[in-house]
């Protein structure tokens, strides 16, 4: 249940792509190591957490950790967050161009809404699809590419094209 709670937390709001996921894991890893060194806890968060939402993380830690001075119990909560990150489903998106951040956000939004859950998208570029998108999720492929549309069109219109050629 705790895992679900972490996933629904705002801390993951910034994580849209695989790159974001790697960055987040890295930050949590660093923080978890740093916990056992001497120093102020808040300073450690400021130093190690940049991509993830510091406020959201602090909120989570305060809600779930009874003693913030105890690095062991803090490390346990951070470990829980990391496990939650590993459980976020990944959907591969193949596009014909390198999308802008705005496009990535829109794509992610569409995907999350479509699947009604938090999803991390793994964007890959393949110019052969010309345009549109190919979505791969748990081994299933949904092809909405221009390449597929053209293939279908030329297959259907093969007879007409041939008759045009022989006129």
């Amino acid at each position, binding site marked *: 249940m705790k895992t679900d709670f972490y996933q629904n937390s705002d801390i993951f709001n910034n994580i849209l792509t695989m790159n974001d996921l790697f960055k987040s894991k890295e930050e949590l890893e660093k923080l978890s190591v740093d916990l056992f060194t001497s120093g102020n806890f808040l300073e450690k968060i400021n130093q190690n957490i940049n991509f993830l939402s510091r406020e959201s993380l602090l909120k989570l830690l305060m809600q779930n950790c009874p003693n913030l001075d105890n690095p062991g119990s803090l490390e346990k909560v951070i470990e829980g967050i990391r496990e939650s990150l590993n459980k976020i489903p990944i959907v591969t998106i193949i596009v014909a161009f390198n999308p802008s951040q705005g*496009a990535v956000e829109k794509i992610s939004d569409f995907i999350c809404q479509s699947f009604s859950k938090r999803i991390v998208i793994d964007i890959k570029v393949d110019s052969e699809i010309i345009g*549109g998108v190919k979505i791969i999720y748990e081994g299933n492929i949904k092809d909405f590419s221009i390449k597929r549309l053209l293939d279908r069109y030329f297959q259907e219109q*093969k007879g007409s*094209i041939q008759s045009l050629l022989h006129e």
Partner: protein
Amino acid sequence: MFIPYYLIIIFIGFFILFGFYIIYLYYLYNREREFESYKKQLDHRSSDILSKATNKAQDLIIKATEKAKDIIMTSEYLKSEIKEDLEEQKKQILKEYSDEIRHLHLTLGKSFEQIGAEIKQGFLDQAKKSIVKVESSFDQELEDFKQVIKNQTVLSQNHIGQRISSEFEKAEEEIQIYKKNELDKINFKIGMIIQKVTEEALKDSLTIELNEKFLLETLEKARRESFLKE
């Protein structure tokens, strides 16, 4: 001097035995002389017998030789007589045979010539008949052969004609199939080229903005049609 009794007995015994021995030797001597005289007599008699036998054998040989000479002389005489007789008989037989042969030659010569002429004529007639028969048979066979060849030629011509026609049809059919296959290949290649050109043209004409717009529209459409939930 006293001589023991037993020595006297031994002495006397010895003299007796010696006397017997002398007598025995004398007897042997006499027997040897008798044997020698018998041997001489025997030798003498045998030499007499041998000389008599030799003389008799010589007489016999002389007589036998004379007899043999007589026999040889007689046989020589007989042999010359027999030889003369045989020569005479041989001449006689030869003469008789030559006369007989001469007669036969004269009588049979004519007959042989006649028979030969008849046989020759017979052979000629037979040969003529055979030649005529062979000629007519050959003509008939030639005619038959010509007919067969003619029929076979017509049949072959028909067969070849049919075969050429069927081969032609087959070749025409194969050409049509080949043409269709090649045309299909060309059409397929042309279709591919047109598609490729279209794709390249689209790639060049689609800007990133247009592409993004199309992408979002596609996603929106997919979401509306619940494609992503399937």
